[in-house]
């Protein structure tokens, strides 16, 4: 595994055999940080250290972790910590590996954060599909309880904190922090209206700290080596390292730990090997499928929170998805839209109906029934979603699709024209609308697609294959 200039923080010793076992973890220095925190430091000192480190949330929002913990009310009330391990965003798989290879690093981080914020009940909410990782975690929690790192009177310090691993039931929305809380309470996982924020009223109405796996995994290292040491990695505003999941059209997909602020090109090309020979990058998602796509011209931007935001996108969970020039942009849009439509919880109107409408519009384009005006409609629907939803799920579809239309509008228009012509060749007359009436044509229209000589829009970009003789689409040669 390639690492940045130094050995890395979270991925250090990752290849040591049986890394997930507590004895191996302890041999490599594990749980020393918890010991230091509990015996040598007050809760306040730990909190200060975390704040001073400038560690920013790795789940997507990038909010200062220490500050978030300091918002929790002090005093003897039931407070909760929820580790968000419901990693479900397409393109993100860093938490999976962090848990799989080094569960104790997370458990130690959870306990340190709980100690800092005076919390006595902690949960790890893990994605339902991560069966193996949940088992790994449960085994690890069992080991840690046996050794006295979890439970009552930890390391005879008088501090007690329980830890429960809870498996989700397969809904992306439960990664949204308030939906996660509802789900954990045994309800249907729907986002809650904020305020009240979880730090004031979260799980069972108690103050609740919610952090991502990677964020919490950093805590032991900060406690052990100090905030200054941590700040020596990364940039001033985005200190530390980041585990980046790189996927899509690259030759070496995988997780890479890099210092924040390295050039994006370094991650995509030097580490992940770039697109297959002869292909060029058409666009890339810098922070999972919910981040607005960037293009080739953004490849030299430093990979950190600020520069991604400046470019109109976001670092998000740090998951780069690379799309090369063989993939039609319509396929990418359809893939994004279908995912978010499928995962919309249905609670608020713009997301529920907007994701549905967007999918239907894209299908219409695919069926050859759309007109160039429909691109404006597509944009307008996205505009009506953005900023109007209860949580971020609606925006998570609308923003990347808006970005795609913005960067690749000519290609959308070309798709519409090509597919319309193909439909006319098949059905004759004035267009597909005659054939099946509006919207009641066959769902997938395989014949249309074959006739048009284009690729199926179903599924993942990886599955997309393109005919060799197919003419390059407009817009392709604009990027390297």
């Amino acid at each position: 595994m390639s690492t940045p200039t130094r050995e890395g923080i979270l991925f250090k010793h990752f290849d040591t055999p049986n890394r997930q076992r507590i004895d191996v973890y302890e041999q490599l220095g594990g749980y020393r940080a918890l010991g230091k925190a509990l015996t040598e430091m007050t809760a306040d000192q730990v909190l200060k250290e975390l704040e001073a480190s400038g560690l920013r949330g790795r789940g997507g929002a990038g909010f200062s972790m220490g500050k978030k913990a300091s918002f929790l009310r002090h005093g003897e009330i039931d407070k909760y910590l929820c580790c968000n391990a419901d990693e479900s965003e397409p393109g993100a798989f860093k938490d999976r590996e962090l848990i799989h290879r080094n569960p104790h690093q997370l458990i130690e981080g959870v306990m340190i954060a709980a100690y800092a914020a005076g919390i006595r009940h902690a949960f790890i909410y893990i994605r339902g599909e991560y069966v193996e990782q949940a088992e790994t975690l449960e085994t690890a929690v069992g080991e840690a309880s046996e050794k006295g790192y979890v439970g009552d009177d930890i390391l005879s310090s008088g501090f007690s904190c329980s830890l429960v691993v809870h498996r989700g039931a397969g809904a992306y929305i439960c990664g949204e922090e308030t939906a996660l809380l509802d789900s954990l309470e045994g309800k249907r996982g729907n986002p809650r209206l904020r305020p009240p924020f979880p730090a004031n009223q979260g799980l069972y109405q108690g103050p609740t700290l919610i952090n991502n796996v990677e964020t919490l995994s950093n805590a032991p290292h900060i406690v052990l080596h100090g905030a200054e040491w941590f700040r020596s990695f990364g940039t001033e505003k985005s200190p530390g390292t980041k585990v980046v999941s790189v996927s899509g059209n690259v030759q070496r997909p995988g997780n890479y730990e890099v210092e924040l602020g390295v050039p994006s090109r370094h991650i995509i090309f030097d580490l992940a090997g770039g697109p297959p020979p002869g292909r060029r990058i058409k666009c890339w998602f810098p922070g999972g499928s919910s981040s607005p796509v960037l293009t080739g011209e953004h490849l030299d931007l430093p990979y950190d929170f600020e520069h991604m935001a400046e470019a109109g996108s976001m670092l998000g969970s740090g998951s780069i998805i690379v799309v090369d020039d063989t993939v039609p942009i319509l396929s990418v849009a359809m893939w994004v839209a279908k995912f978010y439509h499928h995962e919309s919880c249905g609670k608020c109107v713009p997301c529920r109906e907007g994701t549905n409408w967007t999918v239907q519009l894209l299908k219409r384009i695919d069926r050859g029934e759309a007109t160039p005006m429909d691109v404006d409609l597509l944009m307008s629907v996205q505009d009506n979603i953005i900023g109007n939803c209860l949580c971020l799920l609606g925006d998570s579809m609308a923003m990347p699709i808006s970005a795609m239309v913005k960067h690749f509008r000519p290609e959308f228009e070309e798709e519409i024209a090509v597919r319309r012509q193909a439909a006319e060749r098949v059905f004759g007359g004035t267009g597909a609308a005659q054939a099946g009436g509006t919207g009641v044509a066959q769902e997938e229209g395989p014949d249309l697609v074959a006739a048009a000589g284009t690729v199926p829009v179903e599924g993942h970009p990886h599955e997309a294959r393109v005919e060799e003789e197919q003419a390059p689409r407009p817009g392709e040669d604009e990027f390297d």
Partner: protein
Amino acid sequence: MPASERSWVTFTIDGLEVRAPEGEWLLDAAKRGDVEIPYFCYEPKLGAPVGACRMCMVEVEGIPKLQVSCATPVKDGMVVNTQTDRVKEAQNAVVEFLLINHPLDCPVCDKGGECPLQDITFGWGPGRSRFVEKKRNFPKPIALSPLVAIDRERCILCYRCVRFSQEVSEDYHLTFLERADHTFVGTFDGRPYVAPFAGNIIELCPVGALTSTPYRFRARPWEIEDSGSVCTFCPSQCNIKFTVRDERVERVLARQNDDVDNGWLCDKGRYGYQSVHSEQRIDQPLVRDGGMLRPASWERALRTAADGLRKAGAASGAIIGGSTTNEEGYLLQRVFREALGSSNIDSRRGGSLDPRIARMLSRPELQAQVSDLDHATVVLAVATDPLNESPIIDLRVRKAVRRFGAKLIVAAAHPTALDGGATEVLSFKPGGEEAFLRAFAKAMRQIDQSGGAEQEQPRSDRPPEEAGAPPLPGQPELLDFLDHASLDSLSELAGVVAQDVRDAANLLVGAENIVVLWGERLGDGEQGAGALAALADVALLAGLDGGRSSGLIEIPAGTNARGLREVGCLPNMGPGLSAREPGMNTAEIRGAAARGELEALYLLHADPMRNQPDRLSWEAALGNAFVVAHDQFLSESIERHAEVVFPAESYAEKEGTVTHPDGRLQRLRPAIGHPGAVRMEWQVIVELALELGLDLPYLTTGTVLAEIAEQVPFYRGASAEEIGAKGLRWPERELADEALRSLGELRFSAPSEPPPPLEPVDGRPLVVPVASLWASWETERSPALRFLSPKQELRLNPSDAKRLGITHGELARVAANGRAIHATVRLAANARAGWAYLLEGTAEDAANVLTPGGPVAVEITRVSDSEPAPNVALEAGTAGDRT
């Protein structure tokens, strides 16, 4: 909102400066400046806003994103815009999104014309849709329950019905299923949503997705008229609106009055209007002729009735049912007392009240009102199951616990629907009421002596300036009694665990606002007087006479029980609870008539064979006497025994007043005319009086009310105008000294050892009847509700069932004193071992066949030997092995 006063702020909305209480939701605050903001999901009755519909978004200066006004608190100096392009774009977007999957079938939709979605589409929508794809489809309409139809295509998923089910009625039936635009409202496994308050979701629905099955296609909004009145089916006395089309009541809606009902109705109140137009209603006078009741003229009926009553003279008695108005009750007691010289008048079934206690419990200091439950820190429910006796109170208590964090103590001799949400459940033995209350007082005394409650709460039972006031009369004696009593032995007598009593008392002592709900049955029977005295002592010890939102609320057995008592329908008290030479109470009337000592009986809205204990004895009593009945339907009592029957008005036809259990006078107003030859009931009584030689010079109900207001000191001056639409609560009025004096003084009782309750003998469970919401003629006479009419059931503790070799769902024969009924066995873990519970007032297998009053030991045997039904479910908890 808590009673604490809120500070006011000034904010600007659409350029207008508006004042509003700080922290009020912007959407409500905007109304103060006449700015209307559209919304679908916001409904304060449902608790905290959810922000799901996104319709109410506004622009707040200084905040980059649009804000949902339903969940944005107003702050001083806030600048809000609702008319900017951005806001309008967002509103257009939401309406367009909503209509994507809405069928727009307004011409055939019941909601059309009174539909918020229609109104908002016209007012705030873009006026056109750019969506040309296919809308989603669902089978429609389908039955969500026999009473509610659901059309999922019309549903805009606003969350209201689901929130009601989960957060108000707490039945948790409704939920969202599936996701995204496939989301739909449903129940687990598609089971019917049958629950006591389910019908409220129809009114909450802002589109035509949830419609009332009986009302479907019966009227359009422009053909109907609303008529406000009060529901008289139970003591909750919810404020309602009759929907009238062509002189027919087609629907009942809530008329929100936060001091009474919070805008909710139970399903009996919502659908029971169908009884008004029942084919079986008596619509002309009947006189028994040749053994048969036959139609007769009013003249003949009145003359026959008057002849029979005159002949009986003082040897006559009147039983007055709970749905009687104050005016009717007042007039009838005048007829009996003045024209017949009889004081045998009773509107209660449980025996005579001790006048001193009755007056003291009516004193304003000891009275709480329904809305005080919202401010209560502790609610104590004694000997009542509000769900079955006064359903809306059940919702109000749930609200107090869920939303305002009140602690609930339930103390009853039977399982109640509130047990699940209670901090303490104290299940005492039937008959152990007084012992329990004395034990409770003892525990309070102990806590007081040990330096107050274990929790730190300000003690505010009496205002400080009165702290040095002399103790109430009787206090030293009571304290002396308590100091010599033993908590353990009192608890044992009552059948409760002493530590539980202590824990409960600990919640109560020193609490800021305490509301005590108590069931009328607490005062039933021979031990009733002692139990009421003990209740009053607990109330005084807890300082309920001092707290601002503290006090007692009675849950009576009859709708207008309080009003009837206060206008003189009691054997030993006249109007205003004034002293009268005691006549016979209900039980005594029954006994005397059965022995042939009473010659005539007048039944005003009363069906004693069904609703009073000891059915067989009543049968004899009615058989012996000359019975005049005044009712809407031929009940068994009437059909078999009445000589003269006057047709009665339904509540939709009636004018008059009733008194809510918390002292609120409320007006009934006629919504429709009288069917057939039905006449105003109060007029019939006046005419009967005239036949008997008593000239009652009343021209209208208003003049009757004026006289009642003369006669009842604490109603003094009350008029229909003052009562108005929302009622007039007399304990809140400025009362003259004379009125207060008429209610006696606050004093402790002179207690004695409480009597021991009955104990089961020879393993035969003691059976007690309990109230059932649905066991009533309203349920049976309303076609839509008939399926809810309960069959008799026997609730048993699983250990008893095991011992008796009987199990859940089996049919049992329950026998006592040579009589038997059949009942389906229901296992309930919260039923007391050694005791069994039957429903009161069922149409068949009536419990009062077995019980002459109090508990009775019964033989329980299995009727069929068929296998128990699969999926045996306990009503609460599990109970180990079953046979």
